[in-house]
Each structure stands twice: as structure tokens, then as C-alpha cells.
């Protein structure tokens, strides 16, 4: 893998991250926000794989596994919160749960 490949993949990773961020910003549904979060996390995951490959360093793959674990736990906790919130408020609109402000 050459340096320019690495840059290309890094740009892709950053693009994934940006898409995820945009998803969180653009979607009001909580479920979609959680999905967008997964997309955002996949960006760095890709980055670690690519960088690990470039430097021939297994640590990159180790980081990849950690990121995946995190993504899974985040989604698990997030889904639990989502269910509880929807039962309590009857909506999945994240804009609607804005009781804490000021």
C-alpha cells in the first residue's frame, strides 16, 4: 500500500465520519440517529485497518476490534434507552425530548 492509497482511504474514512455526523444532525428519529452513529464509528475503524496495513502494524487491527466492540455496546445501550424513552413519551422524535434546557 502506498502513501497515496493511505491518504485516499483516510479521506474515505473521514467521509464516513462526516456522513455519520450529518446523519445525526439531519435525522430526528432516534433510531436513525443511532444508525448514523454506527456509520460515524465505522470511519475510524476503516482508518485503523488502513493505517495498520500501511505500517504493517497489528495494533491497528486491535484498535479495529475495540471500535467494533464499542459500536456494539453503544447501540445496545442506545436501543435500551430508545425503547424506554418511547414507552415513556410515545414518540421517537429526538427533538421532542428537549425538556432539559436553558
Amino acid at each position, binding site marked *: 500500500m502506498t502513501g497515496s492509497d493511505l491518504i485516499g482511504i483516510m479521506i474515505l474514512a473521514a467521509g464516513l465520519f462526516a456522513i455519520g*455526523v450529518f446523519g*445525526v*444532525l*439531519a435525522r*430526528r428519529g432516534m433510531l436513525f*440517529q443511532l444508525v448514523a452513529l454506527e456509520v460515524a464509528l465505522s470511519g475510524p475503524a476503516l482508518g485503523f485497518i488502513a493505517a495498520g496495513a500501511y505500517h504493517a502494524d497489528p495494533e491497528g487491527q486491535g484498535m479495529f476490534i475495540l471500535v467494533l466492540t464499542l459500536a456494539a455496546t453503544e447501540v445496545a445501550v442506545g436501543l435500551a434507552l430508545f425503547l424506554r424513552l418511547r414507552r415513556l413519551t410515545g414518540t421517537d422524535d*429526538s*427533538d421532542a*425530548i*428537549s*425538556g*432539559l*434546557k*436553558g
Partner: protein
Amino acid sequence: MAHLLPFVPVPALLGFVILSLVPVPLSRAAVIALGVGAAVLPAILFFPVGLSCIEGVCVAGAVVPILSIDTGVFVAQIAMSMDPLSMVTGGTVVLVGALVLIYSGAYMASEPLPDLRRFFAVMNLFLAGMLAVVFAADVILLFLGWETIGLCSFMLIAFYDKLPKAVASGRKALITTRVADSFLLAGLMMLFLNAGTTRLDGMLAAVPGIDPWRLAPIAFLIALGALGKSAQFPFHTWLPSAMAGPTPVSALLHSATMVAAGVILLARLAPLFAAAPEISAMVAMLGILTAALGALVALIQTDVKKLLAFSTMSQIGFMVLALGLGAPAVALSHFAIHAVFKSLLFLSAGVMSHAAGGSTAIESLRGSRYRQPLAFWSFAVGAASLAGLPVITAGWYSKEAVLAAVWSSGPWGVPLWLLAATAAVLTGAYAFRVVFVAASQTADLAAPAWGGLAVVVPLTVLTLVAVIGGLSVGALIQFTGGATVHTPLLPTLLGAAAPILGVLLARQLVKHPQELEALAKRMRHVRIFRFEVLYYYYFVRRFRRVATVLGNAEGTEAVADAVALRREGVDVPGLVTDDPLGRGASQVRGIRTDLITRATDGQTPVVRMVAGDPVGRLLIVVARLFVGFFVARFNPDRIDRAWMGLAGGAGHAWALVRRTQTGRVRDHSLWIALGCAGLLLFAWGTSWR
């Protein structure tokens, strides 16, 4: 006997301390006894001191040191002088003081006990302060006494404190003299810094060494201070209103002693003024101006005390004139004689008006000759002395000495003499105007006679002195170091004729009162007599405006309470219209026609008095615009409001920033994204090369 000198003021001071500070109830008789005794004792103590002068102890420059304080910063030498000057003035003060207090023991006897006690306490304090002024041989003691008598004057003028006018008059006197005192203090400080000592003799010894460019301002400041205390033009306005005090106060403070303190000071610092001739000339000019104007204004007065006040002003003008011309001895002799006859006039006028039901209007004295013969005749003697009837009165001798000094004072002597002689004519006129009115018949003679030893003794003694004291004038002048000036016969004769002319004029005026009224009416349109109004307009009003605007009185709790009450519908009289500094009037909306009206509205009483005088009005308009401009710049709301604006700005910022905290997770995430973007931009910008 010199060692007795420092103890002369002590009884008076003790009297004050006992009467005012010792919280023990005293009976009426005890208060009077204490108060009068504390004033008589100094006279008794002074007697041996005065006698020792005959033995020749009192020479110029004789000083009794009291103590010297090394403050670490400078050495303050407190001392009393035993020179002829202080002996003459001191003798006069103790004599007049004792007599006036004896008199007031009877005059004030019917006042409520607390007021009586306060009266005697302050009178005693005044006497102590006055003695400090006359005996002081150093500026510290001098200024101590100087300010003390100023404060006592305020307290005594405001004695009838339930009358707002009395308190206002007292404040006016105190503030006006304080303005002058500040000048005096400045002058004394500069003199002190140049001479390096607080002793007056040391200061005077240093005078020749002082650069004339420095000496002139020093002399100027000191002269202003002295003139202010002595109610000379342009500080004269406080004296007539000071007559709101009780009559003995007017007799002691505002005729005989306190107002003459300036004269004493000028006489004591005569070498200083001799070294600053231009300032001396100014002093002389102001003196003659006051003498003439005072006499003229006295002529049209309808109140006997006011008349005497203007007369005091005028007579002190004569003394100041003499001082300005470099004849302190003459001025001092006139001071002594004037003190005697002026207090005599006040005391006897007090008796007469007492018999007339307390009114001090000249008209109400009509018939006093039959009701109060003793008082009337002593008044007549006093008036004769004031007018300076030739040969038989003391006043003639001292005034002649002044006129002679004027005549022989160089190229300007003759015109000045003419002016002074005119003033003398007017003096005779106004003095005898009262006498003639009091001597006339009236239907109502039923008022009770009033007298007693406490009244008779002072009147008699003062009358005697006012008649025979003239014989001592020559000796006095010699004693205080002046030379008898031999004037040509013509001015002497003319000078003698002046009072007689005045008496004739008075006769005429009393016979035809309408002429006097016409004169009074005409004089009211002459601008110089509107001085009082201008003074009020330019200083008092302006000051009040500045103070109110600066003071931001709306912020105070009391006003806030009043506003709250008014909101509830309760009428609060003191809110806007009764603003203590009187700026409510400007709130009134009137029809505004032209600039002048606009600039002068709300000032009705004052402006009306200047109406028909375009120059005066223009001046006022300019002054008002000028001050308004500056006051607007100076508004303290701005200092405070700027600070509070900062606080308010922070509050607004809080409300603004707070709105970013919307509670929506998308908005919050947006901030995170923006933060990331910002940091990335920063990283991009700084790693670009």
C-alpha cells in the same frame, strides 16, 4: 502680668464645655449665671493684663509662647501676642462681650431652657474663639479661632431653627465665609511654606525675602479671606440675612467683633500688604466701594436690624479703606470705637423693639422715646457716634482719622476722600432717620417698660464709652504705632460738616417719606444692587443643579418609597415638586417661544427680577447653556450607569448564550460538529506551508 494672657479665653471655653458637654440638668438661673459669668471673667482676667500695658510691657512684637509641638513634620509654635494691636482689639472684645452677655441674660431669659443653654454655650464658645483670633501670634491658633467663630456664627444665626429662613441664613453665612476662608487658608499655607514657620512674626519677617510674584498671590488670597469674613463686597451678601439671629448675637458677632476679624487680620499682616501695593490698592477700592454702597443701601432699609447690618458693612468698609491705604492704627481705632457704638445701637434697638412687640421694623419703633427713654437716648448717642457728630462723639474722632488718612494718601486721596465723605453724609442720614422716627409721637404708648440692671448697666457703660471714648482715639493711634496725621483745616471742616449734612438729610427724609420710597424704587433698578440676585442665580442655583444632577437623588430609598406610595395613589408632597434642591420646576411644561424663554423658564422669581434687562438675561442664558452643557457631560448616572451597564450587558449576554442550550440533541451535536470543524480549520491553517 503677661502669664495671665493665655488664661483670658479659658473661662469662656470652660463655660462652653460645662454648658454643652456635661450631661447634668441645670436650672435656668444656673445657666444664665454660668453663661454670663464665663463671659465676664475674661474681662476681669484681662484687666491686669491691660494694666500692665501702662507699664510699657506691650510693645510691638511682644509674644507669650504657650507651647510648641514638634509634629515631626514641622514645629507648630502656639503663642499669644501681647502687642498693642492685640491689647486694643482684645480689650474691645472682652468689654463688648461681657456687656452683651450681661444684656442677653435678661434679653434671652424667656427662651425655653434647652435653647437658653444652647445659646449661652455657643456664645461662650464664640467668645473663646474670638479671643483666640485677636490674641493669636501664630496661624494655627488664628485659624482655629477663625473657623470656630464662623461655626458659632452659623449656630447662632440659625438659633431660631424652627424658622427655615434662619437656618438658611446661617448656612448662607457659613458657606460664604467658608469660601473666603479657603482662600485665606490657601494664602496662609503658601506663606507658611515660604516662611517655614507658623509664627506670624516669623512669617512677617520672611516677607521681604519672598519673590514678589509669589507675594502678590499670597496677599491676594489672604485679603480675600479677610474681606469675606468682614462681609466686604463681593462677599457682603451674608451679613444682612445674618440678622435672623437674636439681637445680642447681632450686637456681638455681626457688628462688633466677628465681622471685624478680617480687619484685625489685615492689620496684623500689615507689613505683608505694605509689600504688595497692588493688593493693598484693591483692598482699599473694595473698602471704599463697600462703605459707599453699604451706606446707600442702608438708607432705604425698612428694618432697623437690616439697616444696622448695612451700616456695619459700610463702617468696616471705612476700616478696610484705611488698611488698604496703609494706616492700620487708624483702622484699629475705628474698629474699637465702632464696636462700642454699634453694639450700643443693637442693644438699645433690641430694647426698643422688645417694647414694640418684638417687631424690628423702623416704623414700629415710633414713639420709643416715650416708651423707653433710656434705650432711646442711648440709641441716639450711638447714632450720633455712628454719624460722627463733631467733637462730642467718639465716632467723629475715629472717622476723622480715617478721612485724614484718606486725604493724605497720595494722588488718589482727594477723590477717595470725596467718596468717603459722601458715605459719611449718608451715614448721618440713615442713622438719624431711625432716631427721628423713634423720637416722634405715636398714639400707642401703652407697651410695658422693660429694663432691669442687666439692661441698664451695659447700655450706660457703652453710652459713656461712645461719648468719652473719642478722647482716647489719639492715644490709641499712637499706642498702636500710627502717627497722627495733620490734615489741612478745610477737609477737617468739611468732614465735620458731612454728618451734620446727613442729619439734615435725615430730617428731610423722615418728613417726606415718599421721596425715600421713590429713591428705593429707583435703586432697585440699578444693576449693582441686584448683586444678591445674581449671586443667587449664578452660585446657589447652579450649585444646586449640579448637586442634584450629580447626586442622582432618584436612587435613594426614600424617594423609591415615595414613588411606590404615589403609585398606590397616596399623594406624596415631597416627591418631585418639593425636591430639596428645587429642580422640580423645570418639569413644568410651558409655552416655549424663544431661546431666552426656553433657557430661563422655571426660574420665575429670579428671572422676573432681571426682566427688562436684556444684558442680564443674556448673561444668564449663556451661563445656563454653558452649565447645562457641562452638567450633561458630568452626569454621574454615567459613571454608575456605565458600571451597571456592564452588569446589565452581562445579563443580556447570559440570556443570549442561554438560548444556545436548546435541549435538542441535534442542536447540541451541531455545536460538536462546528467545534470539530473549527479545530480542523485551525489545524489546516497552521499546518499549511
